[in-house]
């Protein structure tokens, strides 16, 4: 039984690991993103986490998980609203790219995995994925999106989003530790 649970967790980590590997490719500078592509990656990454939250809001009965999912849905919507307002102001049309495509293909697999679970197994899979996903996205924003953004306002928006993502990661780790019986949050 534990082996099955560990396998499910490993799947979540594996998907985020592939995102890390794509991030690394871009971070090394072998492939560069343009500002319209960066805007597309930013909006896509936020939309994906809203979709994960929607699944959690339907499937979970854990107060901690539901509160976390609600925060993800609201915060990522606020970030998308700001990003859309900025690209509208800058007359930039977000452009599809291989980074966004990778995010979407990984997300499709993760959503399938989440839909296949229920009860405590779902809660664990969801929160484990949130920890792994936010680690991967924080890394992508720090090493790819911010350094490669050319427009100062776009770079500034990404810099404002980064602490939000880091707080989400800390919050996810808190829920993860609490649900696994490793104690309450830091502080």
């Amino acid at each position, binding site marked *: 039984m534990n082996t099955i649970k560990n396998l499910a967790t490993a799947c979540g980590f594996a998907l985020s690991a592939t995102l890390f590997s794509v991030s690394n490719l871009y971070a090394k500078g072998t492939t560069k993103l343009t500002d319209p592509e960066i805007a597309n990656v930013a909006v896509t990454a936020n939309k994906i986490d809203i979709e994960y939250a929607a699944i959690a809001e339907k499937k979970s009965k854990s107060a901690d998980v539901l509160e976390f999912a609600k*925060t993800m849905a*609201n*915060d990522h919507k606020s970030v998308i609203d700001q990003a859309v307002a900025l690209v509208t102001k800058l007359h930039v049309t977000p452009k599809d790219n291989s980074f966004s495509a990778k995010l979407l293909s990984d997300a499709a697999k993760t959503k399938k995995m989440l839909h296949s679970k229920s009860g405590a197994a779902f809660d664990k899979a969801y929160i484990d994925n949130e920890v792994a996903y936010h680690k991967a996205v924080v890394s992508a924003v720090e090493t790819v999106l911010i350094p490669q953004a050319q427009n100062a306002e776009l770079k500034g928006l990404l810099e404002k*989003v980064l602490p*939000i993502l880091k*707080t989400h990661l800390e*919050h996810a780790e808190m829920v993860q530790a609490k649900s696994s019986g490793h104690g309450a949050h*830091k502080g």
Partner: protein
Amino acid sequence: MQKWFKQNHQDMAHTKANVIIVSLELLLISACTSPQPNTEITNKTKTIDTVLIQNMVFTPDSISVSSGSTVVFINKDMVDHTVTDQADTSHSSGMIHSDSAYTLKADKSFNYYCMIHPVMKGKLVVH
């Protein structure tokens, strides 16, 4: 005036974001019957302590204020926050939306946190 500056300096030591508002009021003290009313200028000093909510942290994360003083929490983040007493969650600001503020009258010390982002914490010390 010297006393005012001393007080101001002490408050600045407590917080990086003190705002001092000095209002000058003209008070008419003479009777209406007087052809040339006497005027007196008095200085009234009001201290407003400010906590900035920015980059997902309360700044300063600990603030020490006098009892009865006003503390304003300004949310500069793009997401909502709350200021909620850790010991009594019914003692809460409610949602503080982006670019909005919450004002409280400092009457007791308490540790607070953001209910939406529980890793965000701060402390209000009333003396």
